[in-house]
């Protein structure tokens, strides 16, 4: 795993972003947060991303659409989907689009960290 992997968090809720950021920083990761999928797409630096954690339901482009877009643009990082409304169809679609994980809110922080560490060490 890189010294300080860069995790991008995309969620329209500020408290979720802030708390996740705090959490991941506490385990030594670097975090960048984005208020919407559009903002993320505009600002992210392809090489500077090690993982994207995104909320599913967001106004404008939602998480699944973001995933599709990232697939189209070609990504080399894992995408984790999180949502407060885990429907079966959403789950299936996320997996089909290549999500590395599909997490239900409220998220279990320990589990998240476990999964992240697992993904990042496997990854490139």
């Amino acid at each position, binding site marked *: 795993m890189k010294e300080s992997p860069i995790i991008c968090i995309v969620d*329209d*809720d500020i*408290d*979720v972003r*802030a*708390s*996740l950021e*705090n*959490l991941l*920083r*506490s*385990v030594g990761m670097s975090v960048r947060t984005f208020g919407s999928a559009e903002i993320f797409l505009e600002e992210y630096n392809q090489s500077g991303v090690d993982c994207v954690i995104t909320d599913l*339901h*967001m*106004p*404008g482009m939602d998480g699944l659409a973001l995933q599709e877009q990232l697939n189209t643009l070609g990504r080399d990082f894992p995408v984790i989907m999180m949502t*407060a*409304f885990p429907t079966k169809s959403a789950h299936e679609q996320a997996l089909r689009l290549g999500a590395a994980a599909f997490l239900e*809110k*409220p*998220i*279990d*922080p*320990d589990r998240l960290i476990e999964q992240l560490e697992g993904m990042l060490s496997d990854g490139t």
Partner: protein
Amino acid sequence: MNQPAPQTSDRSRLLLLAAGTVALIIFAADLLSPLQGAVAVLYIIVVLLVAQARGRAAVMAAGAGCIILSLIAFAVGHLGAPVDSAIIRLSVSIVAILAATLLSLRDHSARTTLAEQARILELGHDTVIIRDANDVILYWNEGAERLYGWTRHEAVGQRCNDLLGCEFPAETVSAALEGHGHWSGELLRTRRDGSRMVLTSRWLLRRDPNGQGIGVIESSADITEQMRADAERLASEQRYATIFNAAGFAIWESDWSATRRFLFEEMPPESDPLTWLEAHPHIARACVNKAVIGDVNQAALEMFGAANKAELIGRSVIADYTVETEPVLARIVAALATDSDTVEAEVRYLTAAGSPIDTVLRIRVLPEGAPWSRVLMMALDVTERNQARANLEKTSAELAHAVRISTLGQLAASIAHEVNQPLTAIINYGKSGIRWLGRDIPNTPEATACLQHIVSNGSRAADVIARVRSMARKGTPEAESLDPVEVIEEGLALVAREARAANVGISLASDDSVTEIVGDKVQIQQVLVNLLMNGIQSMRTVEDRPRDLIVKLGAAADGLARIGVTDSGTGIAGEPASIFEPFFTTKADGMGMGLSISKSIVEAQGGRIEASNNAEHGATIAFTLPTRSVGPSELSRPIETSV
């Protein structure tokens, strides 16, 4: 002293001339003639002639004159040598002249009186007919001419029965006339034009000096009209009695004259009756207690549960059948005292069985007789109406609650999400905090920051729960003073998630002119949420422009606050006011109750709601609310006593 009619003045002059001539002749004879008889007695003729011609004064003058002439003649003939026989003759003559004079004077008086009495018969409106024993008309006055249509000329000489077609109880009449000499009663006659009429008649039997009946004097008056009026009045009274007894609502007649007397004895003059009575409720009650029931109708018996009229008649109008509300009594008496003739009030009575009935009481003072002696009280039983109204209010409240719950259901997903966010954050921060503290060198500042975030997120969750709880609360509406901005912002927070999900921008625009509104917070927020959700829905299909939902807060006329929700959607098709009708919905799964309930809520708070289409895009639904607290009772809805 009456003078004879002008046309006889020629005759009277002739008579005077004759009298004068005769007087001279007699004087001459008396003076010159050697006859031994009492020539002077012939002066009687002179006096009689003058009496025919002139009045009392002339008769007396003639009498006196003749006596003087006799004396002169005597003096001339016998003064020197008065002979006994001559003196006797003179005395006889004087006595005769005096007698003739006096008799003439009496006759004159009698004739005058008779003439006057005859005129009275003509003056009266009543008809006078004098008939003989064969029913032949002898006298027919002017009144008879007018009434029957026959002139005097035509009537006199006719048989009365033939002329007038009389109908009367002949045997009774004859018996009365023979027995008492008079009869009075009613009879029917026919006028000349053929119309029948009813007369009231008095008949007197005319008798000759021997006491034999020789005919009838009658006086009659036409009572046809009066009989008709009487019959109508009777029919009218019967009609009244029928209506009174058959009316489907309770009526009772009562006598309030004792009330009036008592009131004016007790109340100081110059007082305003209403204020004074309200200040002395026991007197108001005592006053009304003195009003006595005179008659009741069937419906009143049924309403009070009385077995018969006797149970109610004679009692006070508020006897055992108690009137509960005393302010009403004061108002009733005060209204009557200020000369209203009608008072209406909602009054609660207790029946004989003790069950309460709500009535709308209408009291009407009839102008007949002594003041307030005839008062009609009419009562309409509105217990059912009031009960239905109470039920309706209860049902309304329940429906509003149901809609609130259903709205809550609709928002459930949003609410769950809203609670989830802070919960997620709390868990995250908690774990973070542990990790920060678990480092070799514990990072206290970071940990502290985490704990602070935990607290704030916890509060955020608690707020959501509180909002949800208040939405679900089923309580009676209360009015309180509220900060409008806070109310609106909370409402916006309730729909924030929905709005974000629908990509709708929501905002509050306030001109700061309104700092206070009065109303029930939950209900106002219900209305607001309803309007916001509708606004969000209406912009579902909008693609070419921003989806903006603006809540505008400002002042309206009459000191009210105005809250308007404006969207940039598709607007309202058709008549904007129709959206407030129950069951109006454009959603396939919509119930259509939200806006009509919102309307009832707003109106119950004392405001108005209206919808209109914006000039450019979308619609605005705005409602007004009171800003000043006039008293909490203003906004609750008890069953009111109506004025």
